[in-house]
């Protein structure tokens, strides 16, 4: 039972990691969360969370398959998870809306970035 569970967590964490990286880009944040709902969180924080999710994915892959197959499985999972996330952004962006709402801050310091909005990308 542990094997399929670890695989699911590894794949899910890879997907979540890429989702956080994508949301750290203004273009994709606006795709997912309507800008009037709340302020986007700090990019650095999102990217740190994203890296942690990818690290969790690697740990699960290594825990499941050991040091030889684990990293191979992880790298290839990344190559599958990233396009899946891109297709979600393109075709079903509302699936990620709840995640964006959870991440959104009400800190007024960041309201600047939203005013500048789509012009500021990266």
């Amino acid at each position, binding site marked *: 039972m542990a094997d399929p569970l670890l695989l699911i967590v590894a794949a899910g964490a890879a997907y979540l990691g*890429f989702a956080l990286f994508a949301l750290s880009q203004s*273009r994709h944040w606006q795709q997912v969360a309507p800008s009037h709902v709340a302020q986007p969180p700090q990019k650095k924080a999102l990217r740190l969370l994203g890296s942690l999710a990818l690290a969790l994915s690697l740990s699960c892959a290594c825990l499941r398959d050991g040091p030889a197959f684990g990293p191979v*499985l992880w790298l290839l999972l990344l*190559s*599958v998870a990233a*396009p899946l996330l891109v297709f979600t952004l393109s075709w079903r962006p509302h699936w990620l809306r709840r995640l964006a709402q959870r991440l959104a801050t009400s800190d007024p310091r960041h309201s600047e970035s939203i005013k500048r909005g789509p012009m500021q990308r990266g």
Partner: protein
Amino acid sequence: MGWLHTWAGVVLGSVMFAMFWMGSLSVFDREIDRWMMPATRLAAAPADFSLDRSVLPIAQELAAASPQWGISLPTERTPVLRLNYVGADKQRARRDFDPTTGALIADQGTLGGTGFIYPFHYMLHIKWRQLGYWIVGVAAMAMLVLLVSGVIIHKKIFTDFFLFRPKKQLQRASLDLHNLTGVLGLPFHFVMVLSGLIIFMGIYFPTAPLATYADTPDAKKAFSGDAYGRYNRDKANQPGSLASLDGMVASAEQQWQGGRPFFVRVINPADANSVVEVRRSSASDIMVNLDQIYFDGTTGAVLSRFEAAPVMTVQRFISGLHLVQFKHWALRWIYFVLGLSGCVMIATGFIFWLEARRASHAKKGLKGVRIVEALTVGSVTGIIASTAMFFVANRLLPLDAQWLGYERPQLETGAFYLLWLASFAHAALRPRRAWREQTAAIAVLAVLAVLLDALTTHDHLSTVMRGQWAAVGMDGVLLLAAVIAAFAGRHMAQRKPVLRAVRSPSRNPELEHG
């Protein structure tokens, strides 16, 4: 760099698509075998399987006159015993047996996945002077160049990392998809192409052994003996009888500390100097190992033991990454999907090339777009439809089919090649409708293959019950392919007005690079 990417892609894209397509299918070559050879859809071999009891009597009957015979042991993916020998008519022969009953399985009259699709992937079935290997090698080198140059000319990799705009015009959307599959699949595609070249080092660098083995009479033989292992000894020309094969297999497993054998060969079986070769399975490692142990056939004593030297171990690890001989279903599926993503990368590269030039070529009266479009349609949808045709022919032809002197396997591959040729002709003659009509052909043929499988193997629904996942999976993927093809066809049909709009002079100069 742009011109390099463009020219290498347009000139060799068709070969690369065929390689990626057949390579992706080869990931499941044995499952395709099971589907195409219904009599081999067997339950797993029993655990107490004995070579002495099940194989020896068969081999002594069939291969009595053969100087050597080999037996591939049943595995999860290939649940049959496969005996290779030289028959009484001096011809090499291959027979499959049911490991549980020892019954001979009738010849299924097909090359299947391992005999047609897999070799197509690395040599295109062009045997003359190894030309097929060389075409594949050149295309693989070009693919390495394309992957690297693609990264260089793609200026905003990180900004556009997650970018895909399917609702934009076809030219933009296909470039997005091309970048997406190219960048996100890059680690996989690069390693696969490079390792593919490394596997065939002996073909691409045929004279390399001469440098090290210059003073030996046969440099190539000396090299391959050192690299891949080889042992033999002269016949005694006195009769001898074989000791227990099961005993030798057990001894090999002990020496490999639990490693399982997958192949056993008996050389000069009736001679006092007989040799038994046992090769180790690679199911539990990424590396495809070269471990082999040679036993004295009459006593069961170890004569020689081979393991790859460190440099060869690296080569075998890299090969193993490519050959997926390990048992890992999650990775196998990911390989399949990422291989197909390479197909998408090549196809969208073609489509972008076409869309970026359609208007200007029409204006200048150039034929380039029409020629490349016919080439693209034939090498993308054409080869997919032909593969489906190959499966349909497999289920349509009776076991003893013969026509114009061709045997059943040739009739199957003939159906493949004829439809493939026809798809190029069709694309040249009906450029406007070729995409749509060929995707429709894929959908129809794939569904037909599933229906024919259900009709001809009768026990269809029970395959799920009996855990025949190879056949079930194959049918499932065929149906999925039909759905995707139908969707793609509809999409192409809806795209038509947009295509015309692109023909107007208002071109976007940003998209004209290369």
